[in-house]
């Protein structure tokens, strides 16, 4: 194994390894990052939620966007699967329906990067107990 000879060596090594613990570090302070929940109930998976999730993780990393992508249970919008909920830091979450990889790409480019809404936003039809 190569010896570490300088701070630069160490820095390089750390950058290579950073990805290993990125997910854990972000999970420690999720509110500072873009949080995406992918509805992964049976109906979601059947309509392709798994591919969308894989795409999101992959694309976000390639485009250097720090985000926490988690899978969630059924969000209740069975007519519009796959659904994802996106929460930009400090903002209210927005739910998008009928998300395929193309839509996901649009969401990343327009909403996550620039905060512009795209078609396919679902009206929030519930309140969560956290708000009560």
């Amino acid at each position, binding site marked *: 194994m190569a*010896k570490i000879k300088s701070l630069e060596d160490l820095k390089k090594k750390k950058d290579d*390894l950073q990805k290993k613990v990125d*997910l*854990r570090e972000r*999970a420690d302070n999720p509110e500072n990052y873009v949080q995406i929940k992918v509805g992964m*109930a*049976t109906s979601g998976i059947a309509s392709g939620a798994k591919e969308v*999730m894989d795409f999101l993780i*992959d694309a976000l990393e390639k485009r250097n966007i720090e985000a926490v*992508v988690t899978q969630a249970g059924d969000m209740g919008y069975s007519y519009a699967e796959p659904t994802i909920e996106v929460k930009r830091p400090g903002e209210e979450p927005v739910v998008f329906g009928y998300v395929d990889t193309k839509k996901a790409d649009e969401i990343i480019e327009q909403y996550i990067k620039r905060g512009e809404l795209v078609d396919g936003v679902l009206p929030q039809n519930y309140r969560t107990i956290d708000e009560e």
Partner: protein
Amino acid sequence: MAKNKMHLLVCGGTGCRASASDSISESLKQKIEENNLQDEVQVIFTGCFGFCEQGPIVKVLPDNTFYTQVKPEDSEEIVKEHLIKGRQVERLLYKDPDQGEIIHDSKKMGFYKKQIRIALRNCGFIDPENIDEYIARDGYFALGTVLKEMSQEDVISEIKESGLRGRGGGGFPAGLKWDFAYKNESDQKYVVCNADEGDPGAFMDRSILEGDPHAVLEAMAICGYAIGSDKGLIYIRAEYPLAIKRLKIAIDQAREYGLLGEKIFDTDFNFDVQLRYGAGAFVCGEETALIHSMEGDRGEPTFKPPFPAESGYLGKPTNVNNVETYASVPVIINKGAGWFSKIGTEKSKGTKVFALAGKVNNVGLIEVPMGTTLREVIFEIGGGIKDGKKFKAVQTGGPSGGCLTEEHLDTPIDFDNLIAVGSMMGSGGMIVMDEDDCMVSVAKFFLEFTVEESCGKCSPCRIGNKRLYELLERITQGKAEKKDLQRLKNMCSVIADTSLCGLGQTAPSPVLSTMQNFWDEYMAHVEDQRCPAGSCKELMRYEIIPENCVGCTACARKCPVGAITGERKQVHEIDQDKCIKCGACVQACKFDAVIVK
């Protein structure tokens, strides 16, 4: 590299391993492979999470799901439900002891809310057997910075400025200690890590070594550079096999990367670490005794001065610090002394790890800023007293410390405040007691420990503590007289004044502090031969209430010594001379007719 969607952190601390967490980790891996998820989910066997009460713990990230009391059989359900379908396994989630509410996100657990983790920063977060994970968390950057950019004086003044004080118990400023060792010139100096954790109930040093061994190695190298030493020694008790194993792995990995060994970071600095094993004697936590034990002599303390910084291991200048102290050092270098000294109180900076034990709901390992109150620790982090009982006292500082009561609950915890109220920080053991604990017995318990652990070199400790123990035993048996209490007090002060080392000097502390805070309880034992907490067996008396007894004979049949007599359907009686106070009759009676007095 495969894209991991999820990380499963399985606790690999000694506590959770005792409940089969290694087979949980194995079976999770197996189920994940069966379901073809190995590219998406990574299982990491980490150090201690601190939440030992509810172990074994499995944490799922990034959604911060916190599963408690997991069994190997549960892994199938976790994989099928949570990993595949995204549904948390409700029955394994942590339930808040107060409200009985299920907590879905570990960030909302009262146990973690108040904590700041510096020494424990990587415990339960990284795989301790993998140096790469440590490097990914800024590991060895502090060492690199120190070697490349700082002079020896810079390092020492940084540690001085941070206000870091020794976490092993004494609270001596670490920077000052380093400075002494630096200034004493010699051809050879040593850096020693004291991992001989001996307080009953304390396990923070073990957890740090098991969960983040590289942090200690890195800090020792930094210290080596600062004081001018190229040899590090870790004195660890052989009773910590897992910590030893992980340390050995860590040392090998660090050598492989050239982070230990010769010409570290391509400078002229050489440093290597070796392990020295102790046989688990409490007195060897005292630095002079520890050094003698390492030299192959008896583990007996000698008079200071000379301090180890002057003449330590093999007569050479030696710096001895405790595990937790070292574990804080890399963070201080990385984040700066100013950052560290902002945390804590005026004279005690940073955070302190406590091992919370006894009658609290959340037994475990916690790290809080200095200045947090006992109330916050016991009631908010600890989740309050078990079974809704009343808080009575908390013992801090192990066998050298004292008991604190209700009135001390709002005292901010730091080195000086605890001494001011008659206890001490010690290494951070905290044993919580409720109304059922007899304080005389508590003092007796700690004294039994000191008597056992006394090395026997000086007579006040060897003989005096034995006599103290005997007096306490007489009190708990109801055989003591009032003048014995005065004798007890006198003896305590003589032992404290005349013993050779810290072990003997502080041995009477539990007696003195319980006498001071619970004088009534001592008096009740002596004057009325009564134990108010109902815990001293010899002072207990089982009696039958005639009004409640229906003469069912259940108790008489259960009594192992035939102490209970009475005809069927007649009131029964207990012969006090025969009774051995086993309590079987209380359990047998369905009519609440047997009571304990």
